C-alpha cells in the first residue's frame, strides 16, 4: 500500500472501492464531493489536500489539490486532521482489518477533535452523515494487502 499522504494512497482506496461494488451496493449509493485535508505537523512539512468524487457505488475521481484550489473544487464536506492523526487512523485500520471503535470517523471527529468534518454549508456536510457507512468502508479498504 502506498505511503500516506499521497495521491497514490487514495487511488488505491478508489480502486478497491470500485472493485468491491457488491460491498458498497449493500450499504447504499453515495453522492458527494469530498476533500481530505492533511495538516502539516512534525511528520509533514506542508498541508496537503486530496479531492474525491463519490458517485453511486464508485469513487470516480481522486486528485491532489493546491490549497488555493480547494474552494473551487466545491466539496460537500472536508475531512481534516494532522498528518500524525491520519496515520494513526490508517495504522489502526491496517492492524485491525477495519477501524476499531476508537478510530471510526465518527469518534475521531467528536472526541478531542483530532479530526474535523466541516464545509461551507451544513446541509451539504450532512451528506457525510447520511452516507457515512460508505465513507467509513472506503477508508477501511486501507486494511487490504
Amino acid at each position, binding site marked *: 500500500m502506498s505511503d500516506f499522504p499521497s495521491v497514490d494512497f487514495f487511488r488505491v482506496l478508489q480502486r478497491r472501492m470500485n472493485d468491491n461494488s457488491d460491498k458498497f451496493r449493500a450499504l447504499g449509493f453515495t*453522492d458527494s464531493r469530498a476533500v481530505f485535508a492533511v495538516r502539516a505537523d512534525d511528520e509533514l512539512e506542508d498541508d496537503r489536500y486530496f479531492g474525491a468524487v463519490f458517485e453511486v457505488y464508485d469513487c470516480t475521481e481522486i486528485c491532489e489539490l493546491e490549497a488555493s484550489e480547494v474552494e473551487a473544487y466545491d466539496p460537500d464536506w472536508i475531512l481534516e486532521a494532522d498528518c500524525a492523526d491520519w496515520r494513526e487512523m490508517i495504522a489502526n485500520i491496517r492492524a485491525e482489518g477495519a477501524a476499531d471503535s476508537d478510530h*471510526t470517523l*465518527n*469518534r475521531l471527529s467528536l*472526541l478531542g477533535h483530532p479530526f474535523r468534518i466541516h464545509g461551507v454549508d451544513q446541509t*451539504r456536510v*450532512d451528506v457525510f452523515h447520511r452516507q457515512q457507512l460508505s465513507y467509513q468502508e472506503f477508508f477501511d479498504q486501507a486494511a487490504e494487502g
Partner: protein
Amino acid sequence: MSEKRERLRTLEMPRLRPRPLPPREEVVANQSRHFQTVKLSRGELGHWFHTPLDGGEWSEWGKRARPDAVGMTYMAVTEVCDRPVPEVQAYRRLMHSRFVKPSPRVPENLEERLAPKWGGAREIEEKYEVWIDDAGPLAEEALDRQWRPALSLRWEDMQRLPPPLERAFDQILTWLLQCEYFCSDAVGGYVGRLHYRFVEIKSYLAYEIFDYALHANALRKRLLSNGGGMGAQVEGFDAGLLEVCNEASQGFSGEVPRDFNAVVLAIDVWLNGVMLDLLRLAAAGARSEFDRRLLERVMQDCARHVSWGCKRIGCYLRDAPPEREAAERLHAVADRFEPAQVEGHLLNPRVLEPLALLLGGGPENAAAGWSVLREFWPQIGERWLARLDAVGLNRRDRCQVPTQPPF
C-alpha cells in the same frame, strides 16, 4: 352502576344497527343485469383498449425508461416522463397526477364530491407546501439505504457489558425509542393528506415512517437481548413539539389548513438533528462493535431525515407566496419549542447522565464523559443554526438554544 363503569360505558363505540338486506337472489339478479356485466359478456375489449394512445385518455405510450447506475429509479423514469416535476397549480382530482389523465367522463361538478378538499389527499396540494428539488434521489437513497435489523447486524456478536454501562446504553436507547415513536406519529398523519402528484414525496415520507418503525424494532430487540431492559421513561422529550404538532394538524379534523411545514421544521430539522448529534455521541461511547454499528445505522437515517427537512424548509421559504409569511411562521414555531426542547433533551439528566457514563467508560470516570459533553454541547445549537442559515431562515438573533452548557 359505579361512576367509573358508567364513564367507560359512555365511551363505548356506538352500536351499528344492521340495515335490512335485500334477498340474495335479487342481488345476484341485479349483478347479472349490471351494465358492466353486459359489456363483459359481449367479449369485446372496452374503452381502455381503444382510447387513442396519443390525444386520448392514455398517456406516456412508448416510453422506455432504462435503469440508471442504481437501478430502475425515479430518476430513470423521470428522464423519459412528460411531467418530470409537478406543475405549480393544484388539481381538484386526486388521480390527476403526472401519470394518470383524468377521465373526461367525470364532470366538473362531480369532482369536488368524488375528491373533497378536506379529509383526504387533497388537503395539501400546493407545490410550495410539499415539493423539494431532487425529490427522486432522496426517496431512492432512503430506499437504497434501508436495512434489516434481523439481517444487517450480527446479533451473535453482541457483547455483555458491565451492568452500569449496560444500564447507561439501555437508558439512551429508551430515550431514542420514545423519540422514534413520537416522530412516527407526528409525521405519519400527513402521508394520506398529500396529493398523489407528489409521488416521490409520498414515497419518501412513507420510507421515513418505515425508518422510525425499523429503529423501534431494532432498539427493542437490543434492549431485551443483552441482559438489560427498558430504561426509565424520559419525560419532556416531546415538550413544545407536541403542542406545535397538534396545532399544525388541528386534530386532522375540520375544514382547516394543516401546517405541514411546521411539523417538518420541528420533527425533521430540530428533533432529528438533536437525535443525530446525541447518537453520534452515544456511538462514540459505545463499548462494543455491535452497539456502535447499530447506532451508526440509525444515525445515517436520522441524517437523511434532517436533509429532507432542510430541503423542504428551503423550498418553502423560496416558493411560498408572500401572504403565507413563511419565515415569520417558522420563526414563531421555533420560538415555541426551542426552550422546552433544550430542557427536554439537552438538560435532561435521563439523557445526559447515561451519555456521560458511556463517554467516560463507566461511573468511576464519568467526569471525563462530562468534559466531552460540555465540549460538544455548543455544537448542537450551532448546527441547528447553521442548517437554518443554509436554508434561508436566519434566527441567530432569536434562537433560544444556549450557546454554552449551563451545567
